[in-house]
């Protein structure tokens, strides 16, 4: 177990390092560099000053050297400054993380519960009109563009009916009610989009389990439907579902970029979009590294959860 973990963590560390270089290089290829932007901001900069700044920022150095400088600083805990907000990157990321966790956490709990419930119902009522309606709902959720769904909701609930705020963050004095009012539409959007795939997965897992011999045995023993469902079927069907859920945990921290952007929710996803589209290189880089790290950690947790839930699999012999 210890050795397995050590190996996985080392592997994840290497992936993270490689990824930071790839993203660093890609961001370097985006239009403009920090000095072009600085010069636009202050047209009176003289060529001598520019040359001085270029040397100071090291923008003319080869990419590997620039990356090394960045990496050494980052490893010492210095993640640099945001170019647009003029604040240390970490000071910006931490509040955004909090906001994202509120939004994605709420959506995650709701969509997982809804998906398992709908998936189980569909599996039990397989082939009936209930199954078909759940299936149609799942397909619609998978197929709808989230930003369009958000747009329609804003029009309906904020512009036309005026029931809910169109977006933005609640002010502290608005209290819990204000928070809920601001959360309803973005959470609804995320739940609709996320439930579909998971519900279909849960349905398939449940159908698989219901066809197993031990379910027939349980039925033959005269167990009631409800007891059989909870004790035998649901428990086993949840194993693959929970692994998939654990894999999605990494996404909790990265936020839902489009949904957050649509509803002006100050979370990680929106922060990443703004940083990339606004040429805030360093902020974008650190955010993306953080997001990748959480995805990798979630993957390791999913592996552990898998063996913990299903004793038939041991950590040494993973399917791969």
């Amino acid at each position, binding site marked *: 177990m210890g050795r397995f973990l050590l190996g996985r963590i080392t592997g994840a560390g290497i*992936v993270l390092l*490689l*990824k930071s270089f790839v*993203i660093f290089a*890609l*961001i370097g*290829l*985006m*239009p*403009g560099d920090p000095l072009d932007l600085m010069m636009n901001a202050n047209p009176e900069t003289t060529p001598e000053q520019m040359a001085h700044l270029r040397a100071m920022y090291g923008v003319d150095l080869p990419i590997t050297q620039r990356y090394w400088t960045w990496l050494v600083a980052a490893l010492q805990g210095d993640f640099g400054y945001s170019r647009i907000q003029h604040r240390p990157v970490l000071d910006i990321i931490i509040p955004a993380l909090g906001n994202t966790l509120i939004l994605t956490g709420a959506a995650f709990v709701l969509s997982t519960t809804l998906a398992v419930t709908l998936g189980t119902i569909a599996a039990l009522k397989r*082939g009936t009109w209930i199954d078909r309606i759940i299936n149609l709902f799942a*397909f*619609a959720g*998978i*197929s*709808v*563009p989230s*930003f*369009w*769904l958000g*747009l*329609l909701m*804003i*029009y309906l609930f904020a*512009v036309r009916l005026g029931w809910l705020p169109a977006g933005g963050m609640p002010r502290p004095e608005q209290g819990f009610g204000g928070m809920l009012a601001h959360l309803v539409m973005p959470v609804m959007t995320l739940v609709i989009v996320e439930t579909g795939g998971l519900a279909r997965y849960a349905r398939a897992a449940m159908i698989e389990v219901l066809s197993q011999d031990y379910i027939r045995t349980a039925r033959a023993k005269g167990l009631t439907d409800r007891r059989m469902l909870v004790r035998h079927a649901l428990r086993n069907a949840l194993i693959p579902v929970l692994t998939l859920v654990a894999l999605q945990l990494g996404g909790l921290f*990265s936020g839902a*970029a*489009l949904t957050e*952007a649509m509803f002006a929710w100050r979370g990680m996803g929106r922060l*990443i*979009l703004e940083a*990339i*589209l606004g040429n805030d290189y360093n902020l*974008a880089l650190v955010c*993306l590294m953080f*997001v*990748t790290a959480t*995805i*990798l950690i979630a*993957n390791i947790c999913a592996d552990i959860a898998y063996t913990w839930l299903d004793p038939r699999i041991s950590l040494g012999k993973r399917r*791969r």
Partner: protein
Amino acid sequence: MTEASVSVWQLRWRRLARDRVALGALSVLVLLYGLCFSAAWIEVWLDVTGVDTDLMSRFDPIDARHWLGSDEAGRDEFTRILRGGQISLSIGLFAAIGSSFVGTVIGATAGYFRGRVDMVLMRFTDFMLAMPALPVLIILAAIDLTKLGFSQDFVRSGAAGYWRIVLIVTLLGWTTVARLVRAATLSLVEREFVLAARAQGASSLRILWVHVLPNAVTPIIVATTLRMGSVILTESALSFLGVGIQPPSTSWGSMLTNAQELMASNPLLAVYPGAAILMAVIAINFVGDGLQSAFDPRADPH
């Protein structure tokens, strides 16, 4: 040999033909592609244009000529949707086929040669899989191509914008197919007919092409179909954010960017492009699902 393989496909087709949902979705999809790619003729027939602006007829209501009214620049909304569809639907098709091609090559190579090759390729697949997809796509879509040595004229052309999206969506989308094909190849190369072919001196390429791929083709077809749907969604998101298809070209996603600003006065202009995306993607997903059960002999008939 040929007769047997034909009858397998006939069987599959018959299973698909019994699936009313999949067949309905397939008809919708064919109709959608057909309509979009006859946009030029429809424009002539209705005497409207989805391209040229006409400031005298902005926000025209729905009538016999303007089936969905006209937009903020006086362009006919219906034919504009069709023209946007040409871009969105063809990007979906090209990028899905591209992803499957790359995924098949990588997966088959890994599964056939195994060992070190397999390990390196699969690590690479994992690496790609753990990319935060949308942010990386945005960066790739925003990369200044002149920094890579392309000419200004090329970078500004519509074709560069179009093929750039196809390319980057392909580059990030091949992982599923690679895993499928690798798994299929791993099990197929163990079989007797592959051993027999190898004993007769068949080359690796021939074994893969003649014996392995035809037996792995059904999951590839299903994955490609489903991929088309997610490509269309990705393209629309990128274009909506302003880093995808650039004006004067138009796609369903970029139409939504304009419509968003006019939401309060002309909400319908924001409804049509999104409804088109939803219709196309849901039809694609139903077809993919139908193909999956038609190809899988264990699946239950609905």
